[in-house]
């Protein structure tokens, strides 16, 4: 029985993860497990929609108008071929859901990623450069924060629309992702700036600068890892928000192009049929949206609680 600890005794990274409080809290939280399972299923369906979905609702050739407005399969008049019913053009709702989720998830994740990039970049710059650069960027942040996200997104999108009236589909997507990204970068910038300023004053950074290490290198190698924690937490908060913002824009008619409908577009189309009794056209896309947003939010909530030592 040795009393001397050797390097071989040091637990591997994987072992440490399994023993960590985060994993423990996950295992013991039924909501976290359910939420991540749901999220996983949604993501997989969305990713592999082309293979998983029973039909392709956007291939006009496969549509059959005589199958239009069918109720879900468990109701009278429905058919097993179209599990959740069809809309007024004969499109299968279930398949439309999967394709639509794909678009929604894509836009949501892309915009959060872009948001992070812009925000972290500007935050690092602001914190490191200081002075007038910092002042300017912070003013911009203040101004942007005083405007609600939806307004910013609408404006950029509207702007883009008027600038490129006959835009190609990918350009329209790019503008949309950019618009949503601009609603969220400020939080990252502020957090990163704060951490950068703290690190900047630490002695090891000053020492590195004295030796002559390039500031960029110092920024990336030392400051960035310290800042990633809160940034990731922010990202989890923002993903659901980005998905909802995209759905809202599409619902309002100024989001994704009509050739690639997202869940928001589907809901909008469906609203017209509420009063004629064909509720499934709008309710199912709505439920899907809620499911995705909810599970992402739950996961984020759980992650934040697990990473916050004070709440334990």
């Amino acid at each position, binding site marked *: 029985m040795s009393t001397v600890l050797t390097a071989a005794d040091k637990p591997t990274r994987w072992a440490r993860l399994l023993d960590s409080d985060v994993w423990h809290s996950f295992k013991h939280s039924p909501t976290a497990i359910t939420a991540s399972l749901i999220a996983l299923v949604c993501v997989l369906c969305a990713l592999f929609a082309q293979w998983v979905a029973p039909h392709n609702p956007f291939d006009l050739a496969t549509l059959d108008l005589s199958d239009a407005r069918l109720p879900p399969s468990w109701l009278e008049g429905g058919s097993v071929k179209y599990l959740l019913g069809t809309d007024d053009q004969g499109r299968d709702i279930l398949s439309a859901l999967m394709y639509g989720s794909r678009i929604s998830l894509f836009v949501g994740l892309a915009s959060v990623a872009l948001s992070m990039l812009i925000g972290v970049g500007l935050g690092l710059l602001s914190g490191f450069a200081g002075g007038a650069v910092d002042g300017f960027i912070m003013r911009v942040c203040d101004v942007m924060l005083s405007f609600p996200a*939806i307004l910013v997104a609408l404006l950029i999108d509207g702007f883009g629309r008027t600038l490129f009236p006959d835009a190609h589909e990918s350009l329209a997507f790019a503008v949309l992702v950019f618009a949503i990204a601009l609603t969220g970068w400020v939080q990252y910038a502020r957090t990163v700036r704060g951490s950068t300023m703290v690190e900047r004053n630490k002695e090891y950074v000053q020492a590195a600068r004295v030796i002559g290490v390039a500031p960029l290198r110092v920024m990336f190698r030392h400051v960035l890892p310290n800042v990633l924690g809160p940034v990731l937490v922010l990202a989890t908060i923002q993903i*659901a928000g980005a998905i909802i913002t995209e*759905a809202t824009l599409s619902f*309002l008619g100024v989001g994704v192009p009509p050739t690639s409908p997202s869940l928001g577009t589907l809901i909008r189309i469906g609203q017209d049929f509420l009063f004629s009794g064909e509720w499934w056209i709008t309710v199912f896309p709505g439920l899907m949206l809620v499911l995705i947003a909810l599970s992402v939010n739950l996961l984020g909530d759980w992650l934040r609680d697990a990473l916050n030592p004070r709440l334990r």
Partner: protein
Amino acid sequence: MLAFVLRRLIQAVVVMLTVAFIAFMLFQYVGDPVTNLLGQDATAEQRQQLRADLGLDAPFPVQFVRFVGNALHGEFGLSLRQGRKVSALIVERFPATIELAFSAAVIALLAGVTLGVYTALRRDSFGSQVWMALSLVGVSLPTFLIGILLILVFAVLLKVLPSFGRGDVATVAGWSSGLLTVDGWKHLVLPSLTLSIFQLALIMRLVRAEMLEVLRTDYIKFARARGLSDRAVYFGHALRNTLVPVITITGLQLGALIAYAIITETVFQWPGMGLLFIQAVQFADIPVMAAYLCLTALIFVLINLMVDLLYFAVDPRLRIERVAAAH
């Protein structure tokens, strides 16, 4: 304190000028300013005349100043879509949005604060868990979906409440109000509920989080150690300290209601500024977009200013000078 107020005023002016600049860019360079001002049916001579009058070859700053001057008078030209003066359209629609936003604000504040306090004080009770779960759903549900669901339940299935428009309105001193008729109230219920839910959930979670933080402070511990009653500790000390930072944040959030009204108005076809704006975006109706932008910016800036002043009024640490730590 005077210095602070001045600084905030200058900031406000800077923000307004920036917004005006963006609106100006929209006006001049996106689309045709002459069309923006005269509408699409203007004759060639009218356009010529206006071009000369406007001095469209005048230097950029001059045009900008003129734009700002016009804006200050509420002059934004004619709507491209409807051919009417933009200012008239906005004035017409303003009361609808304000009443909607105001009702939603009241609901969100009252319910949000109450529930926030309840879920903080009775942290582990079943009721708390239920409300926390509901609040999570509340922030996960997009506003438009809430609206649609409410329409489905109350208008389509139960048929007790109307699902679009404002109903009967009465005009008092130029302000068309839906608050004076029963029908107006009935029409207000679903839209204001829809608009309030997101903010309600947010306020509730904010109040709860803040209150939990406050309950962990030393001064609360000291208050308990002095044997103060639960009521004094929770409602005399903890609540007051919780509300101070919260009230200012919620002030800002509620200002945002004016913008979020865009969505609610679309779902319920509520004839307010938001619906006007969306139609303008869809139609690329620049003058309306520019006017809406400037007006909402003004409202936000004013609310921001008021909230800052409120902070001053409520927190004694900002009002009274600190003592230099000498003895």
